[in-house]
């Protein structure tokens, strides 16, 4: 399935390149870091000035947060203490980051003994639990900020070394690094100039994580009396001092605790957002288990004869976005019949995958069915409206009456379950049979799709198989419950050319030999393959079907200028077929419009070589051919003239 083109991260207007979701955490963090360093501007009090007579005095005008057990000004202490705590934590983290990253880079780039040294050294340090190591070193060198910095940087450099190492290992195997190496660029320039910028993301996330941890450990050690030396204030030490007066003077312990917690919170908050920004994969919204519920239409199309397996009528899908819904599929109608292969063709983002997912009741959570009807014929012969089914009934339908093969065989199988188990669970969720029968059925299906030694493969894992084999497994899995409709969403796109041909042959064979009456919805942008397999073709552009009809007619005599362009871009040889994955139309200029910026009138008019000015005025309807077998959405198509003549 191809992604819905949605603009990635929003950027701010003031600072181009600065993501909006980072503003709040950055401001909060900056404030918490800057406030302690602005201490002299906030209070004139000296944090070490003792006034024993006023010990534990409550807040007053002169001392806003009161005075501590030595009568020192608590506001000054918490501010200056922040300076100490933050300085120690950040200096230590920076040192650890520099040393650790350097270790990791050298280990990953030069490998051999360097790699051994880097990984073993960090292993040894990790063997010493952090507080323990800190305790020993502090005992050794005596407490103090310098010792703390040393301890913390020793403690944390291994984690930087590990991250830098694994990231650098990944980056240095990339093409451009190999290329610079081949060009004889000096090592230090490759490492610092090429590799380092590419691993900056994960390292910076680690940096903020470590800074938060360092503040925690610093305060813990100061709490034990092993940290910053009095009278210099630090938060841990303030807690230590206030602990004994906890019941008389809860404010004293509360203030440093809150300062400490707030600072750590700000760093964590910043760090979370930073990670989400740098690596949006992990952020929200990517769930593929979330489906949106189909909507019942209540209408029964007139042409629903007995051989109709599925029908889509006037389907309109909206993508829900914070700024309001965006229409992604408009007025799509399809009729899929038994023993027929319908091909859905179009560029990425034209809506073909969404249309097919809608038929599975598998629309992503963010997409809503706004209008139209989705109807499927069940094995019982009854035609059902997907919108009328509850979640449980939908589950009973999926995989049973309609099945789907996805584009990426490499990722469509769960890597941690055995292939057989994944087939068996599909069988058992629709058929009442014993596990051993299910196993036998799965093995026979594996054999059917042409897998050698099916019994052995049944107990194998997906990663032990090639892409072609996995796609065969996917096909076998789709066939487990003998569905009436099989949807194949670009099943060969991810595969090698020779394998592509085999898979297409397999699908053809199955359709004719194995599953009598099967209707196949074949989605592709590759017209060469479509020509081989399809009975009918529907061409989609920007969420609409622009041309539909018998495959031979549409492909040999396209009536829509877009179909013409598609056919002209078709590579002539197999080699080109493979490299054409980028699916750009060479014959026409421009790119498909963004969903929220569709032009008025015909959506294709600004790329259309034969457009006239009126094309921009009104959206063309589907014009039906004389025999009723073809439809075209173009004012300049022959059918349009026919319509006008009528």
């Amino acid at each position, binding site marked *: 399935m191809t992604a819905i083109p949605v603009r990635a991260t929003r950027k701010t207007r003031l600072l181009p390149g600065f993501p909006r979701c980072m503003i709040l955490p950055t401001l909060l963090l900056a404030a918490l870091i800057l406030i302690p360093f602005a201490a002299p501007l906030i209070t004139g009090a000296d944090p*070490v*000035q*003792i006034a*024993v*007579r006023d*010990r534990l005095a409550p807040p007053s005008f002169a001392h806003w947060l009161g005075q501590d*057990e*030595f*009568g020192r000004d608590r506001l000054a202490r918490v501010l200056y203490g922040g300076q100490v705590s933050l300085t120690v934590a950040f200096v230590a983290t920076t040192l650890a980051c520099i040393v650790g990253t350097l270790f990791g880079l050298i280990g990953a780039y030069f490998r051999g003994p360097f790699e051994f040294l880097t990984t073993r050294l960090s292993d040894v340090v990790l063997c010493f639990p952090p507080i323990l190591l800190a305790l020993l070193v*502090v*005992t050794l060198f*005596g*407490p103090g900020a310098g010792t703390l910095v040393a301890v913390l940087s020793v403690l944390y450099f291994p984690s930087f070394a590990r991250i830098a190492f694994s990231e650098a290992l990944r980056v240095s195997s990339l093409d451009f690094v190999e290329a610079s190496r081949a060009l004889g660029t000096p090592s230090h320039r490759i490492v610092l100039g090429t590799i380092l910028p590419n691993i900056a993301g994960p390292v910076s996330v680690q940096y903020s994580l470590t800074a938060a941890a360092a503040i925690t450990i610093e305060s813990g050690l100061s709490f034990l*009396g*092993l940290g910053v*030396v*009095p*009278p210099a204030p630090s938060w841990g030490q303030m807690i230590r001092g206030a*602990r*004994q*007066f*906890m*019941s*008389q003077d809860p404010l004293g312990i509360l203030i440093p605790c809150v300062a400490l917690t707030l600072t750590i919170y700000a760093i964590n908050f910043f760090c979370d957002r930073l990670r989400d920004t740098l690596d949006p994969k992990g952020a929200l919204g990517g769930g593929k288990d979330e489906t949106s519920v189909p909507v019942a239409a209540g209408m029964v199309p007139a042409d629903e004869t007995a051989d109709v397996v599925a029908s889509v009528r006037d389907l309109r899908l909206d993508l829900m976005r914070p700024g309001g819904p965006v229409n992604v599929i408009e007025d799509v109608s399809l009729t899929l019949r038994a023993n027929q292969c319908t091909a859905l063709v179009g560029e990425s983002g034209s809506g073909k995958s969404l249309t097919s997912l809608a038929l599975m009741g598998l629309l992503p959570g963010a997409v809503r069915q706004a209008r139209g009807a989705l109807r499927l014929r069940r094995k019982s012969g009854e035609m059902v409206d997907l919108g009328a089914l509850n979640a449980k009934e939908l589950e009973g339908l999926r995989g049973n009456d309609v099945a789907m093969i996805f584009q990426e065989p490499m990722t469509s199988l769960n890597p941690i379950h055995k292939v057989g188990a994944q087939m068996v669970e599909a069988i058992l969720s629709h058929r009442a049979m014993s596990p051993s029968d299910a196993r036998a059925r799965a093995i026979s299906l594996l054999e059917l799709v042409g897998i050698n030694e099916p019994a052995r493969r049944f107990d194998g894992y997906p990663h032990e198989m090639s892409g072609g084999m996995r796609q065969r497994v996917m096909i076998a899995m789709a066939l487990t419950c003998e569905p009436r409709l099989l949807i194949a969403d670009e099943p060969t796109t991810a595969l090698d050319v020779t394998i592509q041909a085999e898979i297409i042959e397999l699908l053809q064979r199955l359709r004719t030999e194995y599953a009598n009456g099967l209707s196949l919805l074949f989605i592709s942008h590759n017209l060469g393959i479509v020509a081989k397999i399809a009975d009918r073709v529907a061409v989609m552009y920007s969420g609409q079907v622009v041309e539909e009809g018998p495959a031979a007619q549409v492909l040999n005599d396209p009536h829509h200028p877009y179909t013409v362009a598609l056919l002209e871009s078709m590579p002539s040889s197999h080699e080109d077929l493979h490299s054409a994955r980028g699916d750009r139309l060479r014959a026409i200029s421009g790119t498909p419009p963004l969903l929220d910026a569709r032009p008025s009138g015909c959506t294709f008019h600004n790329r259309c070589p034969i457009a006239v000015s009126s094309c921009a005025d009104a959206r063309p309807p589907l014009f039906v051919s004389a025999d009723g077998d073809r439809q075209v959405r173009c004012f300049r198509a022959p059918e349009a003239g026919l319509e006008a003549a009528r």
Partner: protein
Amino acid sequence: MTHSFQASMMATRRGVLLSLGVGITAMALPCGAWAQSTNAILKFGLSTFPPTVKPFDNTGGAANTVKLMIYRGLMGYDASGKLLPELAESFEWLEPTVAVFKLRAKATFHNGKPVTAADVVFSLNEITKEGSSAFLKSDLTIITAAEAVDEKTVQITLSSPSAIFLDLMASYCCPVISAESTEDNAIGAGPFVMKSSEKGVFIELERFDKYYADDQPHVGGIRFIAYADENLRFAALEAGDVDLIEYLPWTQFDAVEASDTMQMRSTLGPYMFLLFNVTDGPFADAKVRQAVGYAIERQDVVDAAFAGRGVPLYGFPNPQGSPFDLTDPAHEWTFDAEKAKALLAEAGYPNGFDCRLLATATYGMHQDTASVVQAYLAMIGINATLDLPDWGTRVTAGKEGKYDLAVHGSSGTYNDPDSLWSLLYSGNPSYLQSFGFKSARIDGLLEQGRTEVDPEKRKAIYQDLATAYFEEVPQVPLNWRVQAYAMKKTVTGFEALPGFLNGASAYALDDTKLG
């Protein structure tokens, strides 16, 4: 401040009266109830787990408390600090250098055998033998002979008269153990027997039924539980997890005084002082040390480091309960910053100097004292940087002189000025003394005081010592600490022994009753 000190003393006095009253009611109770309470286990919260309980080594207050429950010597103290015969029934001085002790007929070791004169001789030899690490080894070199006159009579001959010999015989580091003791198993004759223990956690003792005093102890056993953290120790008492704790944190005195369920017993025990590295630098000059003496407002030390629970100490640290009154206002360092500055200028440091102030982070009172001292020294231009290593490093640094100025707190072991011997006598330098400090005058006076037995003459000697202390400044005293034991109101009969004997308060556990 004296006000709050008096208040706490009054509280103590009230406590004594109260405990007397309860004692009387307890006696009036039927026998069954008495028997029940005598079998109860007293739970005692220690400040640290005793590293060892070797009878002759001094391994800290917690160890000494436990040792006093298992081992007893010839002499002992009552709850008021009065020296009394313990395993000995009586003693007499045949000559100023010859003492004869008569042992109690009922005194029995934990192995069931009677305490004999041979055991006493054995014990004294164990202390003084070659290779011993006993606390009193050097003190007891004055013994020239110890002989068993008969089964129950020991005669001890000293090289010179000694005013403190009987106090030494009452020390928790001078018990009588059975001659059948082995290296790992010293057999004592104290009121309790070791039952079980777990290193670092607890020691449980049970009553020794053949203890010489028939009516003691009043509890079935004692379970010592270590709480290294003082707040936790107090929390344990407050929550009722233990019955009695030592070293009640000063910050909790108010809470105990206000409590309906808890009470405390306190005395002025140890004192805090400053030590100097006198080998070189400004502190080699006694004037500079005197300036430090004048520079510090001691009440602030008491208030900040001891929550007001202490008494400023301006001169010679003569312990509470000492036989002599050595008060001498002419030789005291009352707070006077101007005088301190003048002395500094006189010594050639009109603008002050930088130095290193050693204390330890292990003990909060040392650290807090150091903080106040630092602040006051800054006022006369002495800019001290704090050095706060852990206790182990602190001891080594003290011994090796790696400091300019150091905070310390200590106590003698009996209420006599002679008890300051280990803190002032330069013949045995340790981390407790100013590094490199030597004074023939002070050493001589200490020696005289120890061998003189006439009280009047001794008083004169120690008055001279107090003057020498003020003039030569081997240490700058800061304050006495109020040392308190806190307990549930249901615990009766326990008292804190006065002065330097505070650490031997475990003697009072003999009379302690539970509820």
